[in-house]
């Protein structure tokens, strides 16, 4: 149980963090650098999972992606596949819950960059994409990295939305937090303890890493 949950958590968290890092940075860039209507509304919608109880987020995800959900029904009709009770569902739930942290950190980092650096790059004939990867991203790397680490932590700890969308199936969707829950309610305190210690150590590591990353380099 412990090993299966650990492996599954690792898979779910790596996939969701990788996806969140890319999607989150792109969204943050749009929010920080582009003007469009309903921009702040978009930001609010992305941030929503941070504020809502995870069960509510899970409920919306079911309405959207369930076999009879708004999108899920077409997915099922086309492919015969449905997200519920798969590890992908756990990754989606973890990703949606982690996205706000990524977007917030990255947006803040991008907004503090002096736009003149980018203008200089343009004036030297570099395209938008190259400017983004060679000027903007390196300048914002600290905040973006902090966002990735926080997203990793949030995805690792995700419980409520995962339980609702993915269910609690040993070896399939039972991530570490869910395994702790099951171990506890079925009286296997030993396993609950082992998993709790692993998660605690991982979390301390993450907080430490975030602090290191977000600290400004000391002037020599």
């Amino acid at each position: 149980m412990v090993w299966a949950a650990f492996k599954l958590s690792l898979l779910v968290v790596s996939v969701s963090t990788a996806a969140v890092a890319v999607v989150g940075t792109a969204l943050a860039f749009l929010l920080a650098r582009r003007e469009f209507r309903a921009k702040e509304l978009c930001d609010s919608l992305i941030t929503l999972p941070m504020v809502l109880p995870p069960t509510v987020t899970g409920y919306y995800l079911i309405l959207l992606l369930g076999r009879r959900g708004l999108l899920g029904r077409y997915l099922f009709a086309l492919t015969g596949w449905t997200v519920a009770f798969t590890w992908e569902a756990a990754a989606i739930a973890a990703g949606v819950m982690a996205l706000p942290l990524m977007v917030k950190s990255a947006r803040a980092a991008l907004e503090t960059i002096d736009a003149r650096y980018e203008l200089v790059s343009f004036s030297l004939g570099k395209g938008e994409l190259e400017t983004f990867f060679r000027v903007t991203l390196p300048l914002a790397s600290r905040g973006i990295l902090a966002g990735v680490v926080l997203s990793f932590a949030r995805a690792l700890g995700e419980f409520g939305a995962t339980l609702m969308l993915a269910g609690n199936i040993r070896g399939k969707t039972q991530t570490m937090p869910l395994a702790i829950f099951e171990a506890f309610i079925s009286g296997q305190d030993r396993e609950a303890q082992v998993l709790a210690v692993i998660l605690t150590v991982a979390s301390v590591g993450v907080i430490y890493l975030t602090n290191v990353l977000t600290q400004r380099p000391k002037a020599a």
Partner: protein
Amino acid sequence: MKISSGATAELLCLREAARRLEWRPAFLAALLVTSVVACSPRKHPPQPAPEKREIVVGAAISLREAFLEIGQAFQKQTGTTVRFSFGASGVLEKQIEAGAPLDVFASAGEREMAELQGKGLIQISSRADFARNTLVLVAPVDAKLRLPSLAALAGNEVKRVAIGNPSTVPAGYYAQQLLRSLQLWETLEPKLIPAENVRQVLDYVMRGEVDAGIVYSTDVAIAHGQVKVCAEAPQGKYGPILYPIAILQTAANNPMAHSFESMVLGAEGQTILAKYGFRNTR
């Protein structure tokens, strides 16, 4: 993060104080002592303890609607409020073992009650069975699959079957017992989706996330016509499903807990339970 301005001011003020003191351990100790003193109950002149006008009943989630109605009737008659905690019987059992302040426990399984009895947590003389139930195989009402019997679940077109998690959900271990005695467990195991309680099984079926599920016959009415009964589980292959009720040791002297149990076991409670499809134990 928003904190009310008063709280912020207080926080700032405390921080300032701490900074000025510059002797933080002592400051923190002082803060701790003050807060403990502030939080501890004030001493009142001795008064007779007011009669407890509330009891807390932990009950199997399959009993939900019936017990809510019994609770209302009880409140009307006695003026005592009944608070319920519904859940999988196995989860409630663990909560009681961990010291949850329940007065009465009504379980869907003998196993959970026996477990509590073994640990001396229930008043043995108060233990009694009050209802029976049966298992049925249900499917979404618009399902195209035909499932005339439980054996049909072994077919390839059946991808997912929900049951309660056998380790904590009585309906789940009865289902496990049933599938084992029908020699279907090994075949079906890869398709099984364990749910946290029997109502979650029902929910999975209602939402069409699973092709079928095994629930109590009494649960079907709760699904508002969104599930259909495909087959009844053959008698003698599982259970019998008997619901025991008992007063917890901590409430042994609480007359209201005993009255509530009497109502469940008596004519009025039995009529309400029958209305929701539970069978009596005779």
